[in-house]
């Protein structure tokens, strides 16, 4: 539902059905709403059977990369004599994204149920939920839910009487965007600096504590109980576009828009209807200018691109961007794109772990140049310099943080070059002048 707004008739509230209902937070309330039936069912199935259901459903990772969940789980080999781990990525730090926060605040047991099913399916006895340090309320809610689940025997050495051990621990991060990258998260969980690791080895081979590990996003795991309860065919049928993009997805909407908040739609939903109908369009007297549709790390779309996009993994790519995490950032015609791209670059410069030269230097220099252009000191030579730096930052580092910084810069220069040029030729930010007038 359109939390914090009322549900829109065009939404398909599955994950978000109980957002805003405090009773759904408790174990009893969750059971009244059908909770833990899927876990009970899963514990009576073989891990391989669960993996097959997920593969058939078409569920793909909701954290950004969109990797098929069933396939990811199939890389784990239960019974190989090694300790296996499941890490839940609740480090939601991608600017524009705030969906996992609401899942944890309102339906903590949905996440626990999906996590327990995941742990059992990959042969893990222990799962860690890594929550970003700033999420103090979700942290408290999740810790209370874990306590309830242990007290009820849902978690522990004999989960729901199945004879299987499933332990879930909540682990608090401490302020580092990069820890949302899966290998950095594992290092952080081990008590190290959150530097990403070189792959291979991939986590399924040597991950947390050197053992086979799967990392899943909060929203992905929260969807798993629904898939088991209703069947793979039901989930697969939920698609408005193509069979590679199935199910419902939460989109977080923020920036210059009438009704910011979370909205849940079936994949393939027309982005134009989404922006103007569900989200209420621009603020009075304004026009939309640009959209970053999948969190700050994906390329910026013009309105022409956005309005012809179908909201799924393939649809955003076809229109010059990516689905990413589903964090929709909207800028209207009162906003300076140079200023915002510079601010995003500063974000990445601040959050770079500084292991790789291209990222450490690239994010810092990109920020300096963009801030100089915004301040009126830019030259036409800066375009070439920025694009050359961006090229050096793309596909050349251990993780994709540096690529993520390059994406808004390159797409911004491609699609909003006239705004950069206006800054350079006018030797000042044209939007600042307007604001002062």
């Amino acid at each position, binding site marked *: 539902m359109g939390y914090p707004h009322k549900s829109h008739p065009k939404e398909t509230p599955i994950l978000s059905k109980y957002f805003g209902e405090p009773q759904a937070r408790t174990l009893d309330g969750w059971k009244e709403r059908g909770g833990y039936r899927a876990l009970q069912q899963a514990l009576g199935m073989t891990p391989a059977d669960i993996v097959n259901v997920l593969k058939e459903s078409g569920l793909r990772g909701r954290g950004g990369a969109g990797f098929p969940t069933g396939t990811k789980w199939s890389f784990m080999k239960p019974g190989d004599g090694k300790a296996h781990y499941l890490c839940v990525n609740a480090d939601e730090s*991608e*600017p524009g994204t705030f969906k996992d926060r609401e899942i944890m605040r309102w339906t903590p047991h949905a996440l626990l149920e999906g996590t327990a099913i995941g742990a059992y399916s990959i042969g893990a006895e222990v799962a860690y939920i890594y929550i970003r*340090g700033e999420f103090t309320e979700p942290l408290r809610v999740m810790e209370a839910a874990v306590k309830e689940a242990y007290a009820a025997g849902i978690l522990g050495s004999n989960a729901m009487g199945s004879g299987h051990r499933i332990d879930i621990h909540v682990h*608090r991060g401490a302020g580092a965007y990069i820890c949302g990258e899966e290998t950095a998260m594992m290092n952080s969980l081990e008590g190290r600096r959150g530097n990403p690791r070189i792959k291979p080895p991939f986590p399924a081979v040597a991950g947390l*504590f050197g053992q086979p590990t799967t990392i899943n996003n909060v929203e992905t795991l929260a969807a798993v109980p629904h898939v088991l309860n209703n069947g793979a065919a039901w989930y697969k049928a939920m698609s408005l576009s193509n069979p590679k993009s199935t199910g419902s997805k939460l989109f977080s909407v923020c*920036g210059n828009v009438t009704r910011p908040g979370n909205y849940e739609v079936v994949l393939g939903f027309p982005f134009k209807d989404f922006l103007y109908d569900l989200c209420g369009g621009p603020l009075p007297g304004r026009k939309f200018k640009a959209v970053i549709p999948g969190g*700050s790390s994906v390329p910026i779309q013009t309105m022409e691109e956005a309005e012809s996009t179908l909201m799924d993994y393939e649809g955003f790519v076809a229109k010059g961007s990516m689905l990413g995490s589903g964090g929709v950032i909207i800028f209207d015609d009162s906003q300076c794109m140079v200023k*915002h791209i510079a601010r*995003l670059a500063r*974000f990445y410069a601040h959050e770079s772990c500084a292991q790789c030269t291209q990222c450490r230097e690239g994010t810092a220099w990109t920020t300096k140049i963009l801030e100089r252009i915004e301040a009126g000191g830019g030259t036409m030579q800066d375009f070439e310099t920025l694009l050359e730096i961006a090229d050096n930052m793309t596909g050349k580092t251990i993780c994709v943080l540096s690529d993520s910084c390059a994406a808004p810069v390159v797409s911004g220069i491609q699609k909003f070059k006239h705004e950069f040029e206006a800054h350079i030729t006018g030797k000042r930010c044209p939007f600042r002048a307007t604001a002062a007038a």
Partner: protein
Amino acid sequence: MSAQREGATQGEAMDHSSGGSIGEIPYRPVFVGALKEELEALLGRYPTKMAALLPALWIIQRERGWVSEEAMVEIGQQLELTPAYVKGVVTFYTMYHQHPVGRHFIQVCTTSPCGACGAEKVVEALLAQTGCVDLGATSPDGRYTVVEVECLGACGFATPIMVNDDFIESVTPEKVPQILTQFK
């Protein structure tokens, strides 16, 4: 809360002493009694002692208001890590305070989505009304420290701020005076 204030005051005194502060004011270990038990319980969650480092640092900050060098030595001894290693980890994460901060530590999100919704004006209002001369500086009365923070993950509720562990959504410059009355 009073323990935290007391700890912070003591820490401040240490911070201002010249050279090694150990010996001038004896360091009070954090992990004794109930807190030692809390640490032991944490160790049961992980296959290595090192993995308890981040949660242990959170305990230190909760009890003392910040993470001093002495506390880094102490937790290093508990988890069999060198002080240099612990410091390396502490300095990686922005939420661990390496020096005492105001009683109310205020973090304001100014990343692009909030920036597009007027976060800069919220920062200005907070600085003016707390008496903090600059970002990161503590107000002369020791009550407030205001910092900018990167994306708080509540972009649809611009502008979110955090005051210690309290998360406050949809802050505007007009709401600042009322918010500050809750944090004396």
